[in-house]
């Protein structure tokens, strides 16, 4: 049976996980000044685990519980470069589950340390193979030991479902239905696929953004032409596909901090830079999703 928002809410009542979602929607008054469209940002760093991934992390774990997949001795497993790992580690700590995460070695330190702090066990995969190498290692582990419950954020329907039943409806409520366009990056694609299912039938134009190069600095985003394609991804969910360069993303990430007081990660800057282009042409309210905060990148050269 498909999970509902009521079921998830009921399962986490009285815990920190109750605070996942219902994130703020704020106008970008300076960066958005003088544009035809009105720019609004959905601030996902306000989730308890600090990123949009709390939504998918929570829903994937509750879905596994509801389906009876988690037994005595089970170990939850996923491949993640970071934010999903932090989200799953937080959710697992609260729900009392064991968790193993496969991450590419030598990616930024913060997520590894946070995930470990929540009690997750880390398996580090070949840094040269990036996220795709982590996925292959997680698949190998899942096949080798029946105790693993492989959540697989790239193909788990609970990932887009979380956005279809929470992120999308929140945006609709917060704007009173006055939202013309939604702009977000594509990583697992859970956000854009789920929000599209919720808002496109109501006439909202969906804009999906990808990095412009296989080697890029937009953490969490995928360059689809060269990456393992997530099974949940479907190009048809978006009306418009854009690409964004890392340099432009970083400039906007820094502007967000200085001009709007929003300390975002590079994917937030990338999404806002894309939304700015959309708002130069389009009218009405344009909602852009900022996936995480800048704190996660303090050990990288982003803020030097």
């Amino acid at each position, binding site marked *: 049976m498909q999970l509902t928002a009521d079921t998830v809410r009921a399962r986490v009542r009285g815990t920190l996980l109750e605070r996942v979602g219902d994130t703020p929607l704020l106008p970008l008054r300076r960066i958005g000044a003088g544009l035809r469209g009105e720019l609004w940002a959905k601030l996902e760093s306000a989730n308890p685990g600090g990123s949009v991934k709390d939504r998918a992390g929570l829903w994937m774990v509750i879905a596994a519980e509801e389906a009876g997949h988690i037994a005595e001795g089970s170990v939850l497993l996923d491949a993640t*470069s970071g934010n999903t790992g932090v989200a799953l580690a937080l959710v697992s700590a609260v729900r009392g589950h064991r968790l193993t995460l496969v991450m590419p070695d030598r990616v930024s330190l913060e997520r590894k340390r946070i995930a470990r702090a929540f009690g997750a066990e880390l398996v580090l995969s070949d840094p040269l193979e990036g996220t795709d190498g982590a996925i292959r290692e997680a698949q190998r582990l899942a096949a080798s030991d029946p105790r693993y419950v492989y959540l697989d954020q790239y193909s788990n329907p609970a990932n887009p479902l979380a956005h279809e039943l929470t992120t999308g409806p929140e945006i609709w409520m917060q704007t009173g239905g006055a939202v013309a366009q939604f702009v977000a990056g594509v990583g697992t694609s859970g956000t854009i696929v789920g929000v599209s299912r919720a808002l496109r039938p109501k006439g909202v134009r969906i804009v999906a953004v990808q990095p412009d190069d296989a080697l890029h600095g937009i*953490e969490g985003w995928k360059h689809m032409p060269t990456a393992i394609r997530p099974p949940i991804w479907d190009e048809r969910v978006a009306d418009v596909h854009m690409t964004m360069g*890392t340099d432009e993303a970083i400039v906007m990430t820094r502007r967000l901090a200085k001009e709007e007081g929003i300390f975002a990660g590079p994917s937030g800057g990338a999404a806002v830079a894309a939304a700015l282009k959309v708002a130069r042409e389009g009218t009405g309210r344009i909602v852009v999703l900022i996936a995480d905060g800048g704190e996660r990148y303090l050990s990288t050269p982003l803020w030097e």
Partner: protein
Amino acid sequence: MTVTVRLPGALRDATGGQTKVEANGRTLADVITDIDRRHPGFRGRVLDESGRIRTYVNVYIGEDDARSKGGTDAPVPEGSEVMVIPAMAGGA
């Protein structure tokens, strides 16, 4: 001096599909320039316009992060292994 340079899958298109190349040079800048001679465009993928290592790329010389050893001026000892890796990972 000859060194081995290991490259991420994301740079395969810049080196004709290779993820391991041999190169010559005394410093990291020399090594990158040497690869760029054979694979034009490689330099720009790893270094920015001012010649610094791109913010989203990490370069290791043996176990050392090149940034902590002088960036592109970092010495590359004979026989060492240089590894270029994405600092960020895609798909969260």
